């Protein structure tokens, strides 16, 4: 039996947790762009420049053949950027958040949500550009778009779930940050962002399917570009793995945070 007082305390804790995430996301966004001329416009400019270069190389030089290439590549690029930037940034979370780690009673486990949230906002800001490309290439919204929040949620939780153990590991081994950076760079080319996974030779295909980002990109593109409902099986499995990662990783994260301040 829960007394009303306990229920109120619990509600307040959730409320406070939400407010912490909101205010820290706000802080990080302001910190990133407060003194830059283009400001939050970089969220749009950066992927556009990347798209320009990569589509030149893959589409024109290497002659990758995919329908509606611009929308296809930009969709992949945005989804991947969200994943990559969130993960590489959150690896250093504990080591760069000393002040918060030392704040009595601060809900540390929320920190990765903040980083993944900030990068999600960048993603959301750039999305309208993708819609423009799609409109130009004659792609219209369909009923399957209702699945978008689910796909986004799975990616959000998965990224957070990976961020926890990486940030925890980085406390003991500072090289983790660099390793993650390099691995993500390489993984970018092993993920079908600028080419279609269909064009991968059959004998390598199973390896590509092990990449969770392949599954997610497939879901995003299916929904956005072809109005296809995402395949429930892989997405559900990924979601379950993500929740498990968060559940285990969070404990690891908090205990390593304390160890970190202990060592100072």
């Amino acid at each position, binding site marked *: 039996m829960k007394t009303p007082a306990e229920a109120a305390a619990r509600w307040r804790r959730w409320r406070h947790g939400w407010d912490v995430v909101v*205010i820290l996301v706000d802080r990080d966004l*302001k910190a990133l762009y407060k003194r830059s001329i283009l400001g939050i416009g970089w969220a749009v400019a950066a992927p556009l420049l990347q798209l320009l270069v990569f589509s030149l190389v893959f589409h024109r030089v290497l002659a990758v053949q995919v329908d509606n290439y611009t929308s296809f590549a930009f969709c992949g690029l945005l989804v991947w950027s969200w994943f990559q930037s969130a993960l590489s940034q959150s690896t250093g979370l504990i080591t760069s958040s000393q002040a*918060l780690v030392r*704040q*009595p009673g601060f809900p540390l486990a929320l920190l990765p949500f903040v980083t993944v949230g900030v990068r999600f906002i960048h993603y959301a800001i750039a999305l309208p550009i993708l819609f423009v490309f799609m409109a130009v290439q004659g792609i219209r919204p369909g009923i399957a778009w209702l699945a978008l929040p689910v796909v986004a949620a799975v990616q959000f939780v998965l990224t957070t779930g990976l961020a926890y153990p990486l940030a925890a590991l980085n406390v003991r081994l500072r090289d983790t940050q660099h390793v993650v950076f390099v691995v993500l760079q390489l993984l970018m080319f092993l993920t079908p962002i600028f080419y279609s996974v269909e064009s991968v030779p059959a004998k390598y295909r199973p390896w590509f399917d092990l990449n969770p980002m392949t599954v997610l990109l497939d879901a995003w593109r299916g929904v956005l570009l072809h109005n296809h409902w995402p395949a429930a099986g892989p997405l559900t499995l990924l979601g379950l793995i993500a929740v498990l990662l968060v559940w285990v990783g969070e404990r690891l994260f908090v205990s390593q945070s304390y160890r970190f301040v202990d060592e100072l």
Partner: protein
Amino acid sequence: MNRGFAIAAHGVGKQYLRRSDPARTWRELLTGRGLRGTSEQFWALRDVTFVVEPGSMLGVVGANGAGKSTLLRLLAGIGRPDEGRLEISDRVNGLFELGGAFLGDLTGRENALLAAVVAGFTRAEARAQMDPIVDFAELAHVIDAPLRTYSTGMMMRLAFSVAVHTEPSVLLVDEFLSVGDLAFQSKCLAKIRTLKDGGTAVVLVSHGMDQVRLLCDRALWLRDGRVVALEAAEVVAGAYEAEMLAETVRRTPDRPPVDLGAGRELRINENRFGSQDVEIERVELVSGSRLASGGALDIAIHWRAETAVPAPIFSVTIRREDGVICVDTNTRVSLVEVPDLAGQGSVRVRIERLDLGAGQYFVDVGVFEQHWRHAYDYHWHVYPLVVEGRTALKGVLVPASRWTIG
């Protein structure tokens, strides 16, 4: 809080691994240094038992490395004790790492809101407290300017103001905020007292025994992680100072006597104590060695330091012939910031009205290590002062007084 305590520690112990050299990079890990390095366990804190009631203040004293910070950290909920039990009421806030989450590009108001939410308020609660926070920090005129335009003092004021306005039931204070001007510091002390009277339990880590005497009800003395004493603040402060004296004697080097003229000599471990890292070369009673009762006393202390010494404390004590201390003041209680010293220079103090009874006194001057750990130089019973005028009879003071018979 009706359990009768805000903090209860039962035999609390915290163990750390003192690693000589753990693997920090993957290369070291791969070349076999391992994640543990060579390690030994040591107790940073052991068998610590105490209770802090709501509305009372506990001072924590001890040398650096005695476990004070470890204790504070455990109280703040950062890490858990390896031994014993720690019971703490829910809303803990600390006056350390002040403004750690602050960001220069945000305005003062945005930062205050951020700090209040980080400290445990919801956004709505934080907004409701914003006016009192800004008023207390005396920053209303600049609160919407970016924080990077603030001085350090202004930043500390804002951070402190946020911390004391988050209605903590336990307030942890590490060292004292030596930043900010005198008026603001006394305002902070007053605010801490108000919180205390309102039922907040305060734990104050301090190196200043005067502060401990003045503010704390009880004090806990830690040495090498263990409790040396847990008594009334006055008692612990006295004992701690006595130990400091012993430490000073131990550190005092052998030096030939210094002739001061007029038949007076400075002799090591007789009337001169201290490590001599800062030497008091000459003490000048600018107003003369004879003074009319009620007159002003001016003292100039000329010092020399061969190597740089961090922010020492200067003290002046006036002692009657029979040893009764009549005046005792120092740069720390006067909230005067002494910079790091190197080379030579002088420090002056003026006591506006010295209403002492006629008689023989001595002016004792000293310069101390910044945490009162030992004296650099202390001259005792060297500089005589004769006060002339009315007698204080059995008292010490002869303040201006008027009788009215009616």
